[in-house]
């Protein structure tokens, strides 16, 4: 790829003196290369999920290039590591915005990281699609709970459903299917965990369930003895945990070690193979995850086969399919922009890609991929998984209706 050609594609929102010159070279080159940025925790305790995201995006990009999905445009990825924390995420966002080749970004994993990135991407008109964020406020504004929904950032999309769907879905399952009416609520005080716990609580109480107690832990804690004792004396029949597997694993393990044999249920943040590794006594623990199980979707069979064939060392994990679809949505957006511009990429494509992504609609790995007026996925399917013989097994799939 040539540097001159790359310069052609990518003017930041503030414009640039290079306009004309690079526009010319863009026409001259037979094929231009654009970058899809990936931001996810590639190291640290959430890296199992993050690497799955990075690899799946890479797979999508490879296949787009092989199929010549967008004639005249080649894609490459730029994977950055946010370690699951907002500050590095923000630096990565700035770096991606500054890189003129970047035409769209897939990521991040954590809602709290997304908060630190949205404004930066929005200012640069750079499309961002998260395969995993479930925090409702990210797309519907801070006041969503009181019914005032307003989309804060038009460049932000996600292929994951929100906690407004996930928490209540879990609450319905616990009361109606598992017949547990007394729950102890624990969260890790992060955007994701606290949000999930709050939406769970609302629906659970509405259904006549009883919250036996509430606790907040620190995400870095690994010692939960004091909390476990409270759960034990509360008489709860289940624990609902809003948070992620690095703390959920030891929490569940210490519950069972202390003789409290009740299931721990959580959201997609604990539905990882590492949860089971960290928690050998996890049998019967539950987790909801967004969408239908990738393994069961006919559309996903090819993705799974291709992922295996690509020989990645790390599994695609919970968000692999969604990451692939996120990347593919960006690719489709670019395709639409190119098609509308006489078969070549316009000089400043970023804003146009944002508009095009809003309109995409295709059959992806996880089902139909399209976005509503808030940038949320129109796919509201969820699945409850349970730990069975050292694996996550499907317990129940369904669509949350409200």
């Amino acid at each position: 790829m040539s540097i001159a050609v790359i310069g052609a594609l990518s003017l930041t929102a503030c414009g640039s003196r290079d306009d004309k010159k690079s526009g010319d070279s863009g026409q001259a080159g037979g094929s231009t290369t654009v970058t899809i940025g990936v931001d996810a925790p590639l190291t640290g305790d959430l890296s199992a999920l993050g690497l799955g995201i990075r690899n799946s995006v890479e797979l999508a990009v490879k296949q787009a290039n092989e199929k010549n999905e967008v004639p005249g445009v080649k894609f490459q990825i730029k994977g950055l590591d946010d370690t699951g924390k907002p500050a590095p995420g923000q630096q990565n966002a700035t770096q991606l915005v500054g890189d003129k080749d970047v035409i769209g970004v897939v990521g991040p994993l954590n809602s709290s990281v997304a908060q630190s990135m949205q404004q930066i991407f929005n200012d640069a008109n750079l499309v961002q699609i998260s395969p995993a964020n479930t925090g409702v406020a990210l797309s519907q504004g801070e006041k969503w709970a009181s019914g005032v929904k307003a989309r804060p950032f038009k460049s932000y999309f996600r292929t994951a459903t929100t906690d407004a769907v996930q928490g209540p879905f879990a609450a319905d399952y616990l009361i109606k299917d598992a017949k547990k009416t007394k729950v102890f609520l624990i969260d890790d005080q992060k955007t994701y965990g606290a949000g999930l716990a709050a939406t769970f609580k609302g629906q659970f109480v509405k259904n006549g369930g009883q919250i036996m107690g509430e606790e907040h832990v620190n995400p870095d804690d690994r010692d939960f003895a004091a909390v476990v004792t409270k759960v034990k004396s509360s008489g709860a029949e289940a624990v609902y945990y809003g948070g992620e597997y690095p703390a959920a694993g030891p929490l569940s393990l210490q519950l069972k070690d202390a003789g409290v044999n009740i299931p721990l249920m959580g959201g997609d943040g604990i539905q990882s193979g590492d949860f089971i590794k960290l928690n050998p006594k996890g049998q019967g623990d539950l987790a909801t995850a967004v969408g239908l199980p990738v393994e069961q979707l006919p559309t996903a069979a090819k993705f799974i086969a291709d992922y295996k064939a690509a020989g990645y060392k790390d599994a695609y994990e919970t968000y692999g399919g969604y990451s692939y679809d996120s990347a593919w949505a960006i690719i489709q957006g670019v395709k639409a922009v190119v098609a509308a511009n006489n078969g070549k990429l316009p000089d400043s494509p970023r804003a146009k890609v944002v508009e095009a992504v809003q309109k995409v609609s295709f059959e992806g790995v996880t089902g139909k991929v399209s976005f509503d007026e808030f940038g949320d996925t129109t796919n509201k399917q969820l699945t409850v998984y349970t730990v069975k013989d050292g694996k996550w097994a499907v317990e129940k799939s369904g669509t949350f209706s409200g």
Partner: protein
Amino acid sequence: MHDLPQQLANGLILGALYGLVAIGYTMVYGIVQLINFAHGEIVMVGGFGALTAYLALPGGTTLWLALPLMLIAGILVSTLTAVAAERFAYRPLRSAPRLAPLITAIGLSIALQQLVFAFYPDAKKARVFPKIPGDPFEIGSVAIQRSDIFLIIAAPLCMLALGWFVTRTRSGRAMQATSQDPDTAKLMGIDTDRIIVMAFAIGAAFAAVAAVAYGLRSGQVDFRMGFLLGLKAFTAAVLGGIGNIYGAMLGGITLGLAEALATGYIQHLPGMHLFGGGAWKDVWAFVLLIVVLLVRPQGLLGERVADRA
């Protein structure tokens, strides 16, 4: 309050863990007046040493056989790391201003973390540590998980051994002398370099015991585990009176109890329901530290106010 005995047991066990790590801070401080901020990472490498030993054993080895070997490996790795740190990082700076070794300690801490992170296979995620299988022991209303038995046995043994060593052996008395007045001790023919190495080594051995206990307890070790544990243990050492080995254990147990009780009961006090629970346990632990230091600036068992730091 019916679960008070259980919360007290939780606090004692957690506190013993803090205490074991705090010994390392306090011994080094008592002899060279250095706050060895890399000590948390000494714990961490000990944990990984023990894990390596476990992984090297053939699968299916019973934990009763594996545990002593893991302990030896952990102690070996921790001690060697600490001694090397003393020799190459701290000794050249012994006559430098106090700030220089302190900064070195922080740098060393980051370096050790990143070394494990970069070079230990799969250390980028938490690594699974074996656990002692079986149901918890029930003593009345108190349940004690099996893995904690190790800590309950190891912590008092370590303290007794250390107490005996410091007061009864020649080296231990030399250590006391060095801590009271290094120059005079040297004039009396004590090889203070050897004593300093010994202080680092003993602290590291205790750190490895703590690391194995931590691993057994939470079922995992990861490259960042030393940070929080080190911070808490340092607090425990200050709380108990830095420089005093019994103070370190007492401070650890006080801190552990404070955390367990704050998690368990603060929110039941009238008007305090917003300030209790796990989220606030660290706040209350540090409030306790501040209050103790206001009343007794030298710490619970400290003998003199630190004049150098």
